[in-house]
C-alpha cells in the first residue's frame, strides 16, 4: 500500500469527508470542479490544514490530527505539479529544475538530472526563463522540477487544464513515462475522463466531497451513476495491442481477437495500449451489421441495461475485448428488444476514437 488518506474538512459549499487507500502507481482523483479534489491535494501537500484526518505515504506519516502530528509542507518531501506551473520567473529553467535538489536530504533517492531532462525533452530550454516558454514547455519543466526534488509522492493538480488539446497530447505521454519508468507514486487530479483512462492505476471518484467510488479506471468510468464529469465521461477502457499500420493511414489494433481500426497513431507494433471508447459514440445492432461505413464492430452479449433519468440508457456488452458501453435511447432499447444475455453488436466509428483517448504503453498489472 502506498498512499493512505483520511480527511474531514468543512469547505464553504461542501463537507469534505473521505478516505481511501491507494496502491502504488497513479491514483487519479476524478471529479467535477467544486467536488473537493484540490482541497484533498492541498491537505496532502500541507498547504491547507484540514479539521481532522491522517495521511501517510508508504507508511510515512505526513499528518495525523489525532496524534497532533503536522509536518510543514517543506518537510513532506513531495513534488507538486501545479495547474499553472508556478515556475519561478526570476530563475532560469536550469535553476528552477535544481531548486528542490538544494533542499532534498543528502541520503534521498535521486533522479539523474540528465536523464530527467532528456526524458522531458527540455535540454534546449535550460538557459531560458519561464516567461519565454510555451504552456506545454512550462509544464514539462514543472514536472522535472517536482521530480528532481527527490519526492516520495508526486502531486499533480489538473496539470493539463490550462493547456489546449494539442498541448495536452504533448504532455500526457510524459506522465505515462513517469508512471512507467519512475517508481514514484503519483496523486493526479483531473475532471477529464480521457486522462483517467490513460493514466490511472486506480481512480477515486469524488462527488460533493465524498469518495463515491474507488477502483480501476475501467470500472469507475463504466458506472454512469458516479461518472463525475457527466454522462459524456461514461465509456469503456479497453486494453489493446498494436497489430499493423496500414498504408491508407489507419492503424489496426487487436482487442481480444477482434480488429479495431483508428486513425494512424505513432505507437510501435506490438505495444500494449489503453483506449477509451466513449459510450455515446457507440451504436448497437441486434443483427450483424452490413452496409455500414463504420469499420469497428465488436460482438458480445448484453450484460446490463441501466436506464437514466432522461430518455437515455447505458447498455453494457460483454465482448472478447472486454466490457463495452453504449449510450442509446430507451426507445431504442425497446425497439431492439434488448435483454440481458442477448447477442448484440457494438459499432464504433473509426474517427470517434480520438487520439487523446489513446494511451501510451501500459504496465501489465
Amino acid at each position, binding site marked *: 500500500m502506498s498512499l493512505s488518506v483520511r480527511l474531514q474538512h468543512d469547505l464553504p459549499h461542501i463537507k469534505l469527508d473521505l478516505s481511501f487507500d491507494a496502491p502504488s502507481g497513479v491514483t487519479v482523483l476524478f471529479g467535477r470542479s467544486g467536488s473537493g479534489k484540490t482541497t484533498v491535494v492541498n491537505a496532502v501537500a500541507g498547504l491547507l490544514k484540514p479539521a481532522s484526518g491522517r495521511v501517510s505515504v508508504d507508511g510515512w506519516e505526513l499528518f495525523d490530527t489525532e496524534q497532533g502530528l503536522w509536518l*510543514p509542507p*517543506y518537510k*513532506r518531501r513531495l513534488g507538486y505539479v501545479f495547474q499553472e506551473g508556478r515556475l519561478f*520567473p*526570476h530563475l532560469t529553467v536550469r535553476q528552477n529544475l535544481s*531548486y528542490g535538489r538544494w*533542499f532534498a536530504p543528502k541520503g534521498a533517492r535521486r533522479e539523474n538530472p540528465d536523464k530527467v531532462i532528456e526524458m522531458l525533452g527540455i535540454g534546449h530550454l535550460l538557459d531560458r526563463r519561464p*516567461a519565454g516558454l510555451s504552456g506545454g514547455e512550462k509544464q514539462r519543466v514543472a514536472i522535472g522540477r*517536482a521530480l528532481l526534488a527527490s519526492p516520495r509522492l508526486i502531486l499533480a493538480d489538473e496539470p493539463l487544464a490550462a493547456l489546449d488539446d494539442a498541448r495536452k497530447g504533448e504532455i500526457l505521454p510524459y506522465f505515462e513515462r513517469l508512471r512507467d519508468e519512475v517508481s514514484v507514486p503519483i496523486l493526479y487530479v483531473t475532471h477529464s475522463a480521457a486522462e483517467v483512462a490513460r493514466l490511472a492505476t486506480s481512480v477515486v471518484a469524488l462527488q460533493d466531497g465524498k469518495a463515491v467510488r474507488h477502483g480501476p479506471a475501467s470500472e469507475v468510468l463504466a458506472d454512469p451513476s458516479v461518472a463525475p464529469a457527466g454522462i459524456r465521461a461514461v465509456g469503456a477502457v479497453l486494453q489493446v495491442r498494436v497489430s499493423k499500420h496500414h498504408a491508407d493511414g489507419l492503424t489496426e489494433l487487436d482487442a481480444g481477437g477482434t480488429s479495431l481500426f483508428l486513425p494512424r497513431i505513432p505507437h510501435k507494433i506490438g505495444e500494449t495500449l489503453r483506449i477509451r471508447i466513449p459510450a455515446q459514440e457507440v451504436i448497437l445492432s441486434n443483427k450483424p451489421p452490413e452496409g455500414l461505413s463504420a469499420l469497428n464492430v465488436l460482438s458480445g452479449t448484453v450484460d446490463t441495461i441501466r436506464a437514466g433519468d432522461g430518455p437515455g440508457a447505458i447498455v453494457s456488452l460483454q465482448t472478447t475485448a472486454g466490457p463495452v458501453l453504449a449510450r442509446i435511447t430507451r426507445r431504442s432499447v425497446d425497439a431492439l428488444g434488448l435483454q440481458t444475455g442477448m447477442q448484440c453488436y457494438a459499432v464504433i466509428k473509426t474517427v470517434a476514437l480520438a487520439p487523446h483517448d489513446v494511451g501510451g504503453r501500459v504496465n501489465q498489472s
Partner: protein
Amino acid sequence: MGWLGPDELEALRLSLRVSFWATLVTLPFGIFVAYALARWRFPGRQVLNGLVHLPLILPPVVTGYLLLLTFGLQGPLGRVLAEVGIVFAFRWTGAALAAGIMAFPLMVRAIRLSIEAVDPKLEQAGATLGAPRLMVFATVTLPMILPGVIAGAILAFAKAMGEFGATITFVSNIPGQTQTLPSAVYAFLQVPGGEAAATRLVVISIIIAMGALLLSEFIGRRVAARVAGS
C-alpha cells in the same frame, strides 16, 4: 565643491551621513514590517499599520517631541541606552533616528507594494519543494521584490535628506553635530546676508530630491516587469 562654504559643506556631509545610516539601519525593519503587513493576518495588524504611518500624518514637531520624551537624556529609553553608551540626544545619531522614523512609512509602503505583487502561490511552490520559510523568502520573495526594496530605500534616503521638523525638535540645530542640510538652510535664513548660502543649499536639495525620485521611479517600473518574469 569649491563654491560651497565650510559650514555648508559640513551640513551636506552630515546630511549624507545621517541619511545613509538612517536608511541602512531601518531597511531590515522596513522589509520585515512590510512583509508582515502584506502577508500575515494577526491581531493588531491595523494598529501596526497605523503606527507605521503615524510619522507621515503627525506634525513633524510632534514626532520630534515624542522622540525627545522617549530618547532624551531624561526619557525612559534614553536613560537605559545611555548606560550602555548609546546616546541620541543632541548627537548626529539622534538626527539619524529622527530621519529614519520619518522616512519609515515611505519605505514600508514601497516595499509592501512590491511584496503584494508577488504571487503567494510561488512561495507555496517553494515550500512544497522543501524550502523552509526563511529560505523561501531568501530565494523566491526577496529576489522578486529587490527592485521595490531599492526603490523604497532611495525614497527613504531622499526623505531623510529633507527631514527638518522632527530633527530640530529632537536634537536641535548644532553646527557639525546636528545641523543637517535643511537645518542649515533655516539657520542661514535667520542671519542677514545668509541668503546666498541658503540658495546654494536649496539647489543641492532640489537636485538630490529630484534625482532620488527619478531613480526610484525608474527602478519601480522594473518591479512589474521582473515579477512578470520578462
